[in-house]
């Protein structure tokens, strides 16, 4: 059937583009471009983690940055104590996942939903931020790693080939790793969503009651989704800690959480490619606005260089005018142009949160 054909075509396209970026960038561009792209790729992985949890699982998580931060900190702390990056890398995934599993059990099995979920995830993020932010004193350290409070942890050793301590990854290696991670994450999630599990979580998002009356336990599925998302975010955090070789509490902050949600909104809930585009677009915009900002600029220029202003306007505009986000809207337009149906699993409901 042609829907499936288009589907495969789409996947192939993504694969080609992804691999092209992976292979060509370092050959065509200067190192600074490569480095910037590296961080975009890392953030895109983070965007995908929320795309899964919120866009498909329907779980509004204001605290995705908490897992991102936990991953980064777990890696940094473990790295200073162990020095060989295999275990730290795993910890960066396991710690956030475990934390999410606990929190998720607490929330989902406590029948807490949509807005209240938002409140709790938000609150947890703030707790982490406040706590970590007030650990500047020398008394706060885990093993040989000082937490550093507001200043964070600078000079984090970079990843090495598993079990080969001296075979450390360099800047280009970092780019290859991040880009490959993004590509694999994308296809991994596509596979997950095509699986029975994936369709079930979408079903639960669509109609929790019905899913339950069919014998699916929403609490379990939500918990699983939440945990997978956290693990992914933690992995992104580990990459981020490598990219800048520092972590600081701001990655727990509200601003960070806001960013992630904005990426997903703009790209579109219920798609994977959308959040990636949204993420890269916004990141690029933020950096572009900040570059070459001489002092004493005129009022209106100041407004243009004013990142929160622009981001805020974008967010409001999208919620009001393009609530589904770019990709689904474009897909719908495509559908409107005489196509019988587009990807059915694209979120059709106005409200992504479960009813």
């Amino acid at each position, binding site marked *: 059937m042609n*829907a499936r054909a288009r589907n495969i075509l789409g996947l192939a396209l993504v694969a080609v583009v992804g691999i092209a970026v992976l292979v060509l960038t370092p050959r065509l561009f200067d190192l600074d471009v490569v480095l910037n792209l590296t961080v975009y790729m890392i953030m895109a992985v983070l965007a995908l983690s929320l795309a899964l949890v919120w866009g498909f699982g329907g779980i509004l998580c204001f605290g995705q940055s908490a897992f991102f931060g936990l991953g980064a900190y777990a890696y940094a702390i473990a790295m200073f104590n162990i020095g060989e990056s295999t275990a730290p890398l795993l910890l960066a995934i396991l710690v956030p996942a475990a934390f999410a599993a606990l929190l998720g059990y607490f929330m989902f099995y406590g029948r807490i939903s949509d807005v209240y979920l938002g409140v709790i995830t938000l609150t947890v993020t703030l707790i982490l931020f406040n706590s970590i932010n007030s650990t500047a004193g020398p008394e706060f350290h885990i093993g040989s790693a000082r937490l550093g409070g507001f200043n964070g942890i600078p000079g984090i050793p970079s990843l090495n080939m598993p079990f080969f301590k001296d075979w450390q990854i360099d800047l280009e290696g970092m780019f290859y790793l991040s880009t490959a991670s993004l590509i694999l994450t994308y296809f991994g999630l596509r596979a997950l969503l095509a699986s*029975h599990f994936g*369709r*079930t979580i*979408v*079903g639960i*998002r*669509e*109609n929790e*009651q*019905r*899913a*339950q*009356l*069919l*014998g*699916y*336990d*929403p609490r379990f599925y939500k918990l699983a989704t939440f945990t997978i998302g956290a693990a992914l975010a933690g992995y992104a955090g580990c990459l981020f800690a490598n990219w800048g070789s520092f972590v600081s509490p701001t990655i727990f902050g509200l601003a960070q959480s806001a960013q992630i949600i904005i990426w997903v909104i703009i790209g579109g809930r219920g798609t994977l490619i959308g959040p990636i585009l949204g993420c890269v677009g916004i990141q690029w915009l933020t950096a572009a606005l900040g570059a070459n900002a001489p002092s004493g600029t005129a009022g209106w220029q100041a407004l243009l260089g004013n990142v929160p202003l622009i981001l805020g306007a974008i967010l409001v505009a999208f919620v009001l005018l393009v609530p589904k986000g770019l990709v689904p809207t474009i897909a719908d337009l495509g559908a409107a142009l005489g196509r*019988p*149906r587009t990807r*059915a*699993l694209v*979120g*059709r*409901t106005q409200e992504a949160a479960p009813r």
Partner: protein
Amino acid sequence: MSAALIETRGLGMRFGGVHAVRDVNFMLGERELRCLIGPNGAGKSTFFKMLTGQLRPTSGAVLLRGEEVTGAEPHEIARRGVGIKTQVPSVFDGLTVRENLWLAATRMHRGAQARAAVDAMLERVGLSAIAPRLVGQLAHGQRQWVELGVVLSTDPDLVLLDEPAAGMTDQEVLRTVELVRDINKTKALIVVEHDMQFVRMIASKVTVFNQGAILTEDDVEIIMHSPVVRDIYLGKRAAV
């Protein structure tokens, strides 16, 4: 004793001061078909919600094949073979008809088997033509059929139908009747319905609810002519 597929003992539900259901002792055998009738607010839907675990009874017990399931989670009860078609069609609007049925069928089968089951069910409820459509875009009647298909796809032993004929055209009603009879060949059903014609066509035995309690329980013809029932309920619908 073991004959009973589902049984309730002194089942009761109170919201604050209100007794929505009180002391209901109900019993249904394997492959039996029962109609529940009674005026609005008689507690029929509440009763259903307790059978399916959507509500936790404030008193009494629900037993499936002699095992107590009182206050179990809805999905647990569903997994023990109880399927319900709710009053307002409850389906996955964002998914296609096929995906709706597939999600239900995969509770029992996997892979090719599931796909086969889905195709069969599409045939059975006459939805093959619109299988790729999004359910959210279908008409009310069609969504009713989708929900029926979804419920049956999980292959339950007990099917609860809450006003299946509501908002259906006459020949849709007839098709429903056939379907119900067909289902009843292999499964037990409890049907809540106002339309007495419909009840007459499918049921032999009828349970009458009134003010949250079972008023009486008897053969459909007798119920039809019982003055008491007539007074509390059928009075206004005698003409039907």
